[in-house]
């Protein structure tokens, strides 16, 4: 099968296009500038709409508008821009509108820097904006996955009428890797709830405002049931070298890819260590991790931040095993060797 050499931004854009995305609105911010640039060329080619919005806020609200009238729509940005989009994401969740948001995470807080980071884990997995809601979050570890998950995200968004986030970073955004394309989608789901003009039907409305006492509570319980279903059905994760393990590294995205090399080094040294990689950060694979934890004595959590996913690992760690954390915040990217040294220092030969 033909493979295409693309940057992460380009691959994700193609994934969206192949999934039938017809609307993109964005705003320049490093390290995802290639995304709007590429979409400005590709959207008109596929009969879609590209708009360079006046702000991140406007971009997410344009995506809201596209979702309102039933189109598959996407916006991309990087951390500070994603913060600005949070109000819009909350409205998408409240109005039960499907959309895909790509975050090429850079270092923060504030303006931070433009280097890769995983510091938006909390923001991505805990709703991010105001109100009781969840977004489905995929964390790819290479360009192929970034393509695949973007392609898939639209179906999941439509299935649950919920915004879906792709949490990648500055490395995956910019790195060039070969990508295998999937079949472009021709048949997209019919959305009877969409606003298209009320010809031949009663008027539709889209809203998240429920002023009558008790109605919002009902709406929130309805969302809760949906979230429970997502937790039940949509968990994705991968395990590597986990057949005979005494300890385990838990890591996601780019950092997991680095840890994969660490585990290979450690295995050569005879250390019985494995790697657990959550792919959906929400819903988090608590049960699957908990089952694995039953077999081991020690957990290492490695993240490119000050320790965020570790909170979810703690929830899965009912056995109360010792957890050792290695983090590189502010755009720091660890090498496989430095993680290996950390593991050695904390005694992996149990």
């Amino acid at each position, binding site marked *: 099968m033909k493979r295409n050499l693309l940057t992460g931004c380009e691959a994700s854009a193609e994934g969206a296009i192949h999934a039938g995305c017809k609307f993109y609105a964005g705003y320049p911010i490093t390290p995802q500038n290639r995304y709007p640039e590429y979409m400005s060329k590709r959207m008109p080619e596929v009969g879609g709409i590209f708009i360079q919005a006046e702000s991140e806020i406007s971009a997410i609200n344009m995506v*809201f508008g596209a979702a309102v009238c039933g189109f598959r729509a996407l916006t991309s940005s990087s951390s500070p821009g994603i913060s600005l989009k949070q109000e819009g994401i909350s*409205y998408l969740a409240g109005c039960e509108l499907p959309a895909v948001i790509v975050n090429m995470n850079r270092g923060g807080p504030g303006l931070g820097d433009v280097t890769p980071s995983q510091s938006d884990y909390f923001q991505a997995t805990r709703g991010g904006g105001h109100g009781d809601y969840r977004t489905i979050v995929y964390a790819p570890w290479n360009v192929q996955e970034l393509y695949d998950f973007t392609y898939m995200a639209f179906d999941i968004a439509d299935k649950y009428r919920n915004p879906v986030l792709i949490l990648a970073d500055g490395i995956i955004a910019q790195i060039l890797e070969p990508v295998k394309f999937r079949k472009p989608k021709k048949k997209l789901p019919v959305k009877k709830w969409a606003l298209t003009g009320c010809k031949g039907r009663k008027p539709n409305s889209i809203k998240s405002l429920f002023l009558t006492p008790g109605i919002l509570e009902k709406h929130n319980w309805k969302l809760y049931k949906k979230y429970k279903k997502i937790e039940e059905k949509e968990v994705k994760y991968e395990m590597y070298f986990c057949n005979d393990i005494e300890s385990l590294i838990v890591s996601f995205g780019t950092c997991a890819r680095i840890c994969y090399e660490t585990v290979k080094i450690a295995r050569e040294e005879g250390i019985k260590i494995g790697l657990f990689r959550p792919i959906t950060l929400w819903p988090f694979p608590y049960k699957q991790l908990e089952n694995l934890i039953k077999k081991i004595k020690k957990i290492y959590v490695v993240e490119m931040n000050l320790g965020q996913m570790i909170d979810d690992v703690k929830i899965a760690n009912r056995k109360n095993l010792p957890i050792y954390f290695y983090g590189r915040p502010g755009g720091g990217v660890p090498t496989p060797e430095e993680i290996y040294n950390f593991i050695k220092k904390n005694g992996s030969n149990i």
Partner: protein
Amino acid sequence: MEVIYKKPESLKKEITTYCPGCGHGIIHRLIAEVIDELKIREITIGVAPVGCAVLAYNFFNFDVTESAHGRAPAVATAIKRLLPDRIVFTYQGDGDLAAIGIAEVIHAGARGENITIIFVNNAIYGMTKGQMAPTTLPEQKTTTTIYGRKIHYHGYPIKMCELMAQLDGVSYVERVSIDSIPNIIKTKSAIKKAFKYQIEKIGFSFIEILSTCPVNWKMSPKQAMDWITEVMSKHYILGVYKDKGGSNG
């Protein structure tokens, strides 16, 4: 017997939730009449603001969506671009459009989006019970300008029509009022022209309507109408500010 006055089809049979003497009822009806007359009810999509008129979808008998505070023009932009043969309009108050959402309306205008903006200016935040708006007049008392709006302290009110008319992408700008029967008729004409321009693809229209908020102005409905005539329309001059489709273009 001929029926000469009835509820427009574009309005639902709903009991109003607007306050006595509020201008929204009149303006909703004018929009509904225009949409009926142009026979576009089944292809119209409205975008409601945050503010009193967020509830517009309860009253309009066509497709209406909510939008985040100030973002209606961004939402409308996407809808119109994706469904160019539908008629798309936003209905926004002064806080929504001229404060938090001023970037969205200016840029939608600059892009020359083929949409219609209905801007209801009552010089106050209605839903939150009477704070200073970007269009609150000098010396006007509100709950956040209890001694009156002092221009050296609170700044000047924004004249949106004058501002929007400067943008090359904007096709039609008019300021109207609902303070008298002749002015209500003029308001309807302006709304109709704006929707017609959208149908004819003439482009972005901006209709500012001076309206009442008697409860927060602490006036009777009659006093509120008189206040538009005697005070508000002295500051916000009525008239056509731009018309690319007509003689002023």
